[in-house]
């Protein structure tokens, strides 16, 4: 039983990482209705910006918030410059551009900062808070940050007029236009917010996995898994999905015999497939019913 609790806690700690990423994934999915494959690379690049700022002498929290600001602006810019012109293009065009962005951002980061692994500081420290090796201060801090981001998002969408307009623009662009919502800008805002959340995720994840251009590869996959499990239409679902992916992955690695850490990543993929087969809208997602 001890081992079980231990593994659940450790799973929650990694789950917090996936939850961060899943939240960013859902955010952009809400706005543009597609998975953004470049999301992880955008988060990685943001994290490098934070690292660079700190190298230049910025204190941690200053770098943290400046990076969020830069990422937000960059997200808006990417939508305005690249995705606005192809707005009516078929999904495949979007996917191709997502992949192109992925490769471009990845190589660009390598070009500027090289592919060597860099340490990234944690603002919370690494002391254990729940017994040795169970839950570190960083893990706890990361969970708190995910919770705060989630609360902010909830408040934004629930109580502000712009949040309401963004929901309307995503739900029905034509109707939204006709009540005066500038739908194009709502999309750009969605991109900006997703990029900013990605930046937070990157900065929270980097102390755990170390900073390098490929740090997000597998994490994005787990993030997708978390988002799909929780439901692509629900930020709360995405976060809970991220945590459950972390826990399931850890428990499977421990309790299923012959199931070493090499097989962990396939759990994420198996989860995606299973959820898509059984309940495509996710556990917390809403089924979209179209009248025919």
């Amino acid at each position: 039983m001890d081992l079980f609790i231990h593994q659940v806690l450790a799973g929650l700690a990694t789950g917090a990482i996936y939850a961060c990423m899943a939240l960013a994934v859902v955010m952009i999915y809400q706005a543009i209705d597609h998975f953004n494959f470049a999301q992880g690379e955008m988060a990685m690049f943001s994290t490098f910006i934070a690292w660079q700022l700190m190298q230049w002498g910025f204190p941690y929290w200053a770098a943290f918030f400046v990076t969020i600001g830069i990422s937000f602006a960059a997200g808006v810019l990417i939508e305005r410059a690249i995705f606005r012109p192809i707005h009516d293009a078929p999904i495949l065009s979007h996917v191709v551009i997502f992949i192109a962005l992925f490769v471009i951002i990845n190589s660009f980061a390598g070009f500027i900062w090289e592919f060597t692994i860099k340490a990234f500081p944690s603002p919370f420290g690494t002391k254990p808070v729940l017994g040795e090796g169970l839950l570190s201060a960083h893990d706890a801090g990361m969970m708190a940050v995910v919770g705060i981001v989630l609360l902010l998002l909830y408040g934004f969408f629930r109580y502000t007029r712009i949040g309401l307009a963004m929901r309307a623009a995503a739900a029905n662009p034509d109707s939204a236009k006709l009540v005066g919502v500038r739908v194009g800008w709502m999309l750009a805002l969605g991109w900006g917010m997703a990029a900013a959340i990605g930046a937070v995720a990157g900065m929270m994840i980097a102390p755990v996995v170390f900073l390098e251009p490929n740090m997000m590869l597998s994490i994005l996959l787990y993030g997708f898994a978390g988002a799909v499990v929780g439901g692509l239409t629900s930020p709360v679902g995405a976060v809970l999905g991220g945590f459950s992916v972390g826990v399931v992955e850890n428990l499977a690695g421990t309790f299923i015999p012959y199931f070493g850490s090499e097989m962990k990543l396939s759990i994420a993929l198996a989860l995606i497939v299973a959820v898509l087969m059984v309940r495509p809208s996710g556990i917390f997602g809403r089924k979209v019913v179209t009248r025919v």
Partner: protein
Amino acid sequence: MTSLTLQSRAQSAPSRAAAPLLAVDNVGLRFGGIVALDGISFEQHEGQILGLIGPNGAGKTTLFNCLSRLYTPDRGDIRFTGKTILSQPAHKIAGIGISRTFQNLALFQHMNVFDNIRVGFHSTTKSNYLSDALNLGGVRRQDEEIEYVAWTLIDYLGLRADSKRIVTDLPVGTRKRVELARALAANPRLLLLDEPAGGLNHHEVEHLGELIQQIRADRNVTVLLVEHHMSLVMSISDKVVALDFGRKIAEGTPAEVQNDPDVIRAYLGTDRK
């Protein structure tokens, strides 16, 4: 903030002699080889209820989409209060006083009735991302006023019992009233209703006719109505315009249009004796 008050423009009696509120002037639009609209012209005065009729595919909804700027006509002009609207983007249309409902309902799914109506106020507010995010005092006061007027509309259309329900869970008749409330939230001068009676039962249609006339009287809204339900159109319209294959085939009082040989032919087919 007077723009938000429910009856702000009521009692300013419509004057028929004045310039028309809406002037559709020789509007034409083609999609590839199909001529959807072929030189449509008509005028509508403030306070009038105008019924737009015609068989399926006559171009009624296309014309509506031009009026709400989802489509841009290839030729001709559409003037609202004497000024062309063709230079305005779709998101400005609500702000200048034109609201609409859709034939197949275009509500914001997964949002509740109250939120759907709240979005309708968007064009009446001025705020930006920053002031909104910081939730400054002025924004909060505006929000309170919006909430108040939203509740007034909800009561006006008898939606209070369903106000917190998700719109997709509601029957068509109720959803139509939600869409109407959303359109009225922008406090329009011209209300475009695309087949408001579609999907309603006999009793609801009767009530709808009274409701449209009530709205015109209470809020001094001019109503342009596309409708297949002939008895509804003929009973509430001041003027009827009939379209067929993108052309205007008749215009006049309900009685005149009903007896127009071209209209009868369009609906019943050509007499080949």
